[in-house]
């Protein structure tokens, strides 16, 4: 057995290396895309600032899309953030124990539903609702924002919940001891104490909202001109990329990559602003005056949404299950293969990164740099990933449309999710355990391996659930890297379609929509099974620590 001192040194070096590799990867992706976008930036230049986008006519104005992304994301946050945070608060502090588990399980399930299903849900239920309430075509900024708000709900809910569980119980008890009743103690002490976690949840939600394409494309109307109001349709940056990338060649393609680069820069800038440490004086002002039953109301709305979406999938899919099932075996196996591969690649790296940020790095610019880069990875829309994966893994490395290329692309996408949740989990571990372990002579790595990781098991498992959901629901990135061939995966270099891509292919031409719904149902059941398995694993881990 190697001496513990050298293991400790090796671990520190390893974690630091992973952190720097992440920074290098983000820089490399930006440079790679930058090189591809350069021709358009040089040739189009100031014409990018116009108000009409019509490449066929040589009009390259991106202002409508910038405006569209901002407006849709703002509506999404206005819907998803209060709903997610308050529901999380309900689950942690106001909910009978018997209700908390099923509600959060259902929310985790929502995270795994492919965007295309949300798109159909929006198109079939939300669009007519908005049309009959407000008039217009129903395909609007408002509709897309509400749908996106629903889509980022599970992310915000799950992360806020972890953050709320992180708040030391002593704060709550202290408030109670000073005479505050339960509701007041939770609203004024516990909730503000979790603000960093909530801010991070909002960040990840924001990234998801800005980057989401496959659902937005179905309900936003996609008009590339400036809208007159919330009820007008709009094209966002990410849908602008996905809607035309297929057909684009030459300058047009380069211009779309430039759009991706702009998206990249926006996300990076946003992270830089939000990552700045809040000034000491501001903290006290973070106090919300909430109505007493806000968490209950929010939880009620969330549960209604959960039922509406799950019900939608079951009602539309169940009658056609028989017709769709025979074709699903190969995509199901491909899905599992891509999940296994992407987790095998991203889990060690994500955990190492989380360990570095939570246990090793000192607060300072290095930590901020690594964190900003990780967040930037999280914000990149899947179509940019798909494009990058295709240009880099499929063509540059010569892997072809393959499960390997798909898995590698997904691994990059999962890294920030795993890192974020694992870090939250590690930070949630009582500091007493760290000190106790150190007092007994254990080094940082040993403490991490034997004490902290198992204790953070639930948070890590939560991250894995989100990650699996992301893979299961991903369409754009996999379509461009793993291809869409419906066949049994015979090797890592074989092309294959996952269930979501299968569903996308079925739904695309409108000929097999029923089978697409049935596939969606199977997807949901698959995610449910994976979630239950992961939950059981998390509980076993916790029991092992004897907590």
């Amino acid at each position, binding site marked *: 057995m190697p001496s513990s001192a050298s293991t400790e040194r090796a671990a520190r070096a390893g974690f630091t290396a992973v952190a720097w590799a992440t920074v290098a990867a983000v820089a490399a992706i930006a440079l790679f895309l930058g090189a591809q976008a350069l021709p358009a930036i040089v040739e189009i230049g100031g014409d990018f600032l116009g108000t*009409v986008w*019509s*490449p*066929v*006519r040589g009009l390259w104005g991106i202002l409508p899309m910038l405006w569209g992304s901002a407006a849709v994301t703002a509506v999404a946050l206005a819907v998803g953030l209060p709903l997610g945070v308050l529901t999380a608060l309900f689950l942690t502090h106001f909910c009978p124990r018997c209700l908390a588990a099923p509600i959060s399980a259902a929310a985790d399930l929502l995270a795994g539903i492919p965007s295309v299903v949300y*798109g*159909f849900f929006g*198109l*079939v239920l939300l*669009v*007519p609702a908005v*049309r*009959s*309430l*407000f*008039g*217009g*075509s*129903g*395909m609007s900024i408002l509709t897309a924002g509400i749908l996106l708000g629903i889509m980022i709900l599970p992310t915000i809910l799950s992360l806020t919940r972890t953050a709320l569980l992180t708040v030391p119980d002593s704060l709550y008890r202290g408030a109670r001891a000073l005479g505050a009743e339960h509701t007041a103690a939770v609203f004024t002490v516990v909730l503000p104490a979790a603000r960093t976690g909530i801010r991070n949840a909002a960040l990840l939600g924001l990234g998801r909202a800005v980057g989401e394409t496959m659902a937005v*494309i*179905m309900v936003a*109307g*996609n*008009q*590339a*001109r400036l809208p007159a109001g919330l009820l*007008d*349709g709009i*094209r966002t940056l990410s849908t602008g990329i*996905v*809607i*035309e990338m*297929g*057909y*684009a*060649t030459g300058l*047009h393609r380069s211009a779309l990559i430039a759009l991706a680069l702009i998206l990249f820069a926006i996300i990076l800038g946003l992270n830089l602003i939000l990552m700045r440490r809040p000034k000491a004086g501001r903290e006290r002002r973070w106090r919300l*005056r*909430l*109505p007493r039953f*806000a968490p209950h109301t929010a939880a009620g709305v969330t549960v209604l949404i959960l039922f509406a979406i799950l019900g939608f999938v079951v009602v539309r899919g169940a009658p056609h299950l028989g017709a769709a099932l025979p074709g699903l075996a190969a995509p199901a196996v491909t899905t599992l293969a891509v999940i296994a591969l992407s987790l095998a690649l991203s889990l060690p790296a994500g955990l190492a990164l989380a360990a570095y940020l939570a246990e090793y790095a000192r607060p300072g610019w290095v930590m901020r740099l690594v964190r900003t880069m990780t967040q930037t990875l999280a914000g990149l829309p899947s179509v940019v990933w798909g494009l990058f994966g295709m240009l880099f893994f499929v*063509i540059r490395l010569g892997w*072809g*449309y393959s499960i390997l290329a798909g898995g590698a692309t997904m691994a990059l996408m999962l890294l920030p999710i795993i890192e974020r949740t694992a870090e939250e989990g590690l930070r949630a571990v009582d500091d007493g355990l760290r000190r106790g372990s150190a007092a007994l002579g254990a080094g940082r790595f040993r403490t991490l391996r034997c004490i902290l990781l198992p204790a953070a098991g639930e948070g890590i498992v939560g991250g894995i659930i989100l990650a699996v959901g992301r893979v299961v629901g991903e369409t754009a990135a996999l*379509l461009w890297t793993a*291809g*869409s*061939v419906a*066949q049994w995966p015979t090797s890592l270099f074989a*092309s294959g379609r996952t269930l979501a891509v299968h569903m996308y*292919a079925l*739904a*695309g*031409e*409108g*000929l097999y*929509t029923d089978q697409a719904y049935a596939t969606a149902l199977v997807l949901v059941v698959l995610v449910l099974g994976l979630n239950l398995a992961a939950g059981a694993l998390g509980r076993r881990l916790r029991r092992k620590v004897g907590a």
Partner: protein
Amino acid sequence: MRRMGVLLAAVLLCGCGQTAGVDEITAVVREEGSGTRAAFGEAFALEEGDIDPDAVVTNSTSVVKLCVAGNPGAVGYLSYGALDASVRALAIDGVAATEASLADGSYPVMRSFYLAAPAEISPAAVDFLQFIAGEQGRRVTQAAGFVPQAFDAPGGRGEAGRLVIAGSSSVAPLCEALREAYLADRPGAAVEIQISDSSTGAAALAAGICDLAMLSRTPAVGEGAVAWAIARDALAVIVHPDHPAHGLSSAQVRALFSGKAVSWHAFLSFD
């Protein structure tokens, strides 16, 4: 919070006060660069600049169909092969899209589907093209809802083997049907179909990733060394099943999609 509630109620009331009728025209178009959009524009002499900037844009046939099926004031277009009972196709200039009018060419809105190949065409591709041009291929094409088109398949000795076809999602259903019949006929063959779109298919062809590219529009210069028009497809102009109109003239279609028509009521009562 109370203020927010009042605001929300006000917004809801204002919204309900507006006319939410079927009278409002919502044109649904495909995205720029789509083969279907190009073919539609060509058929109705709609230049890119003519198309209503407020028209809803989508990159999927099924979304066009769902939009129109769910909105009594919407009008859209799609491939005849994708038509079903959820929407209604309108007659154009008095000719309805039926199997007969497609076959004799009297239906005015038609386009061709192409398969493109590189200069060095693979034996497997030759064999597949010869199959499509043959009697059985024509039967399958007809059964799939498309109009078979006579074309000169490449000569030379074809050989059933591994074949990769990539490209247009509009052509894909036809190729899937052809593939099934082909595989039943040639046990030694293995055909992969990668669904994306016309230009991606052409790019894949140039990169050597596939043997044949599917295109739902006329191949541009440099997109494959050779291309064959293997079938013809009709474009149907569709409305909600409850819509009062039964047919439109070309001029009316042009007006609808260029944003010159204000409301269905005013539009249809003009003639």
